[in-house]
């Protein structure tokens, strides 16, 4: 376990070595947060309630979504496809450690750093604009942790799956771009998914994207509006279903990829 802890610490040190890059990345995150936050704040201020969301609940939703989205989605697995293309992956495969765990701990360092910065930014942001801090709903706390864990693993394996496409194609940026667009549309980063018409909302619940952070955010901010619409057991089983499918597909791609992988000159 010690070696993975070292991977975790080294990844953190990498970020501190390239501080400006990381700070600019966080600045981008804050700018991206401004659009949906102020758009929905303006709407709920104007019409008081939008599909059950009031000013207070929209603030709460975006507060927790800012904290959790980059914690769940933060990843270093994007490097993998390049490592496959330039053969660098050989160095990792030859090491006496699990490739999956290695990247899991790298991701963990990324996530923790993102979470800390998100806390700091949102605290300053709410103070500067005199926005009241939302309260936390502890009633569904166990469910929050369950869905948070599911979201973390779903995000990890989905990202790995896309990176492993590098075993067969040099064009890995295009699938990642469409994945990124799908996440921005279907995961709830631009709006709470339950403001959509019922049928469309249920359709999105059938995809893995809503389990990345929409469900965990709802569980800690406004669980009642969600629980009134869908059965928690139902969404739990859908999330587990997707996790199993994506886990085994990722493993399969990894094994097939390693068999088809060849590189020379290093």
């Amino acid at each position: 376990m010690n070696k993975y802890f070292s991977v975790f610490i080294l990844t953190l040190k990498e970020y501190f070595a390239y501080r400006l890059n990381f700070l600019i990345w966080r600045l981008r995150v804050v700018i991206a947060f401004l659009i949906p936050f102020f758009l929905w704040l303006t709407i709920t201020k104007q019409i008081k309630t939008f599909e059950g969301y009031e000013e207070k609940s929209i603030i709460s939703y975006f507060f927790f979504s800012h904290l959790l989205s980059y914690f769940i989605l933060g990843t270093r697995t994007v490097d993998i496809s390049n490592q496959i293309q330039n053969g660098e992956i050989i160095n990792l495969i030859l090491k006496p450690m699990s490739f999956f765990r290695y990247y899991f701990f790298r991701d963990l360092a990324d996530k923790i750093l993102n979470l800390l910065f998100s806390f700091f930014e949102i605290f300053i942001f709410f103070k500067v604009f005199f926005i009241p801090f939302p309260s936390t709903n502890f009633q569904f706390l166990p469910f929050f942790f369950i869905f948070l864990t599911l979201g973390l693993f779903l995000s990890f394996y989905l990202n790995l799956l896309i990176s492993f496409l590098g075993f067969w194609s040099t064009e890995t940026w295009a699938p990642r771009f469409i994945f990124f667009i799908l996440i921005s549309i279907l995961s709830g980063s631009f709006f709470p998914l339950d403001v959509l018409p019922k049928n469309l909302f249920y359709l999105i619940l059938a995809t893995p994207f809503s389990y990345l952070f929409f469900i965990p955010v709802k569980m800690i901010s406004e669980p009642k509006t969600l629980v009134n619409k869908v059965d928690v057991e139902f969404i739990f089983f859908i999330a587990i279903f997707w996790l199993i499918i994506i886990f085994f597909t990722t493993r399969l791609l990894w094994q097939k990829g390693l068999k088809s992988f060849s590189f020379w000159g290093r």
Partner: protein
Amino acid sequence: MFKKIKRNIKIFLLFTNQSLKTTTQSRQAVFIFTLAKILRFIFLFGLIFLIFSKTNNISGWSLNQIIILYLTFNLIDTFSQVLYREVYRFRPLVVSGNLDLILVKPYHPFLKVLLGGVDLLDFLLLIPYSSLLIFFILKENVSFFSFSWYIALVFNGFITTTAFHIFVLALGLLTTEVDNAIMIYRDILNLGRFPIEIYQEIISFIFTFIIPIGVMITFPVKALFNLLSFKNIIFSFLISFLLLLLSIKFWQIGLKKYQSAGG
């Protein structure tokens, strides 16, 4: 003078032709990228309709006005991506020292580093964006006078976006920080997808007077609906002219400080 322009156009077309060949090398990627961009466009378009199913205005802007604003944003943003794609590839030139090979060529370096990588995929997207824009403008009862101001201010927006891209190039010469700078520009520009009035006053002020995203996108649409004072129209032209001058000056400073490295 005329001969020089003709020569520059010829070089520009040559680079464009090369860029088209490079882009179409991977057809799968072309298809996926275009699909993703269309998806994003349709999604945000749908979001506007979703919001307006519950309200008849956002900060005083009606559905049609917001749609025209959103399409104007897409037009200006896509225009800059069509023409200035090469800016995204500027950093490796500076880091490797290969920029020297461009600077010694007998044409203006902007022809290569700014305009040398026309993205024809995005150009295709300009067709539906402008068709939809014309369709929605025709639905409104706008005077020829207001429409003329709109067109003039959209062109003014193009000038502002050009200035921003030159700033990024100059920053690249000084610090090699191109990738982050261009992405921050894109993120800030995205704020213009919706009326600048939705943001708190201090943010609106910053994005109107300091980083004039509002001037680029919100002002043309306001002029179309006769909601922009003459004073603000003059201000728009002045600020874009000033930005363009400053960006060129900044580029010249960058060139003086540039030390070829790596090559």
